């Protein structure tokens, strides 16, 4: 019988990451879609770094940042009583940074794909930017938000390099499913590795299937 805690931990981590990413990415995408400055390009380049950087590089820098010897790590440790390195909180922060482009890019593409006249018409009707975002832009970008959420969820579930660097392999805290698979293979316990891999494959497939089913239903309705 396999230990289910890595699976539950992965799902928990992915859910929390997606919720935090939604809260960050929606206002950030709205801001970026309305900005025309060189500063915007710098922000976009920084946010997109996890797309091209090897996860171990990102994990290494995060590990240094989370260390109690660094100013960020010591701030969290001394003032908030949270140790970021090798903890679930650290994993959440790392996952948010690592999966940010996967959530942000689809939402940004969705916002940029809407005609500019939609938000302009809303402003001319006396509505604020916040009302326009909540009542016009978001409802018309549902598909992009769903795509971003699914990509970020699946990406978080499957992450390995960053988790290994900043979280290690602590059961019930940082031992997520991808780490568990690695652990089982290292121990030559292929049966459990098969089970974990099969479950991860099934979860990812079902999520993607649901998204495509919904997407195709929507396009048929249109």
């Amino acid at each position: 019988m396999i230990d289910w805690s890595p699976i539950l931990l992965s799902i928990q981590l992915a859910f929390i990451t997606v919720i935090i990413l939604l809260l960050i990415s929606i206002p950030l995408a709205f801001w970026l879609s309305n900005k025309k400055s060189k500063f915007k390009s710098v922000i976009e380049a920084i946010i997109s770094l996890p797309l091209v950087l090897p996860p171990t590089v990102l994990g290494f820098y995060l590990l240094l940042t989370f260390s109690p010897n660094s100013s960020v790590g010591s701030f969290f440790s001394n003032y908030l009583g949270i140790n970021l390195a090798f903890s679930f909180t650290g994993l959440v922060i790392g996952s948010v940074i690592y999966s940010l482009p996967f959530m942000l890019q689809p939402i940004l593409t969705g916002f940029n794909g809407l005609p500019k006249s939609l938000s302009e018409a809303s402003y001319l009707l006396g509505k604020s930017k916040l009302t326009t975002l909540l009542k016009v832009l978001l409802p018309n970008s549902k598909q992009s938000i769903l795509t971003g959420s699914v990509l970020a969820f699946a990406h978080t579930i499957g992450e390995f390099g960053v988790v290994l660097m900043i979280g290690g392999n602590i059961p019930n805290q940082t031992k997520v499913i991808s780490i568990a698979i690695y652990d089982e293979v290292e121990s030559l316990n292929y049966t459990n590795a098969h089970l974990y891999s099969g479950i991860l494959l099934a979860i990812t497939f079902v999520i993607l299937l649901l998204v495509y089913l919904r997407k195709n239903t929507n396009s048929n309705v249109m």
Partner: protein
Amino acid sequence: MLKFNLNKTVTNSTFELDVSFELEKGDFLSIYGASGAGKTTVLRLIAGLDNMQSGFISKQDSIWFDSLKKINLKPQLRKVGFVFQNNSLFPNMTVIENLEYALQKNQSNAIIHDLLKQIEIEDLVNRRINTLSGGQQQKVALARALVQKPELLLLDEPLSAIDNASRLSLQNLLLKIHHQYNLITILVSHNVPEIFKLSTKLLILKAGRIEKFGTPKEIFTTDTSSNEITLIGTVLDLTLLNGECSLLIQSNNGIVRQIVSETDFNNYSIGELVEVSISDYQSAVKKIVDFC
């Protein structure tokens, strides 16, 4: 009274807009000119959707924009009705939801019922936007623009993508609404018959500058005449049959064939704008000055 002095330079471009004019209550101004002349930019600057370097916009005592005093009222506060060429209705809402969205804080929805009736879209209220025809969409967009009871209505080629029958009915509707709600209306249009039908004033824009400003009749026709009926139309065909030269002309009222002299015949070409004057026993045709 509305006063405009609009001045905008586009970065990395030689285009510079420099336009000043005044409008009174009840004026229906059309802006006409070639593509890229700055027609839409004028509307966007008035609405506050684009920023300009210098100039001013004032409506009676309130100042919307003044570069010297550093005043720039947000589009939300200008209370302008704006109908875009297309794509401005919210697809996530039904027709009635689009109109209700436009209601201001504490505003009664009586205006919506009035507009639904006036614009004849009562039977569309629960329809989704993507199920409406182009003409129906523009009717809804017009109704939505009027919900907040603007005094200034800006129309950016709202009828350009609509079939002729719907276009004529929407022109009548625009005229009715303009008078009924006592508006100042500014219309960007490429359609000369439409301009003649709707406008009291016409502004010809060329490369960001005012080329002409006056009534459509003064500007488009070469002289004033006392003929009883004047049709504005486009030459569809030139026919030379049994020594008789004629032009086939399409106007809003239909298609007419006009006999012309052989010398005149050679001066016309297909697609040209012309004016046909019909008096008691005779008719005559002459060219319209086309500024595009």
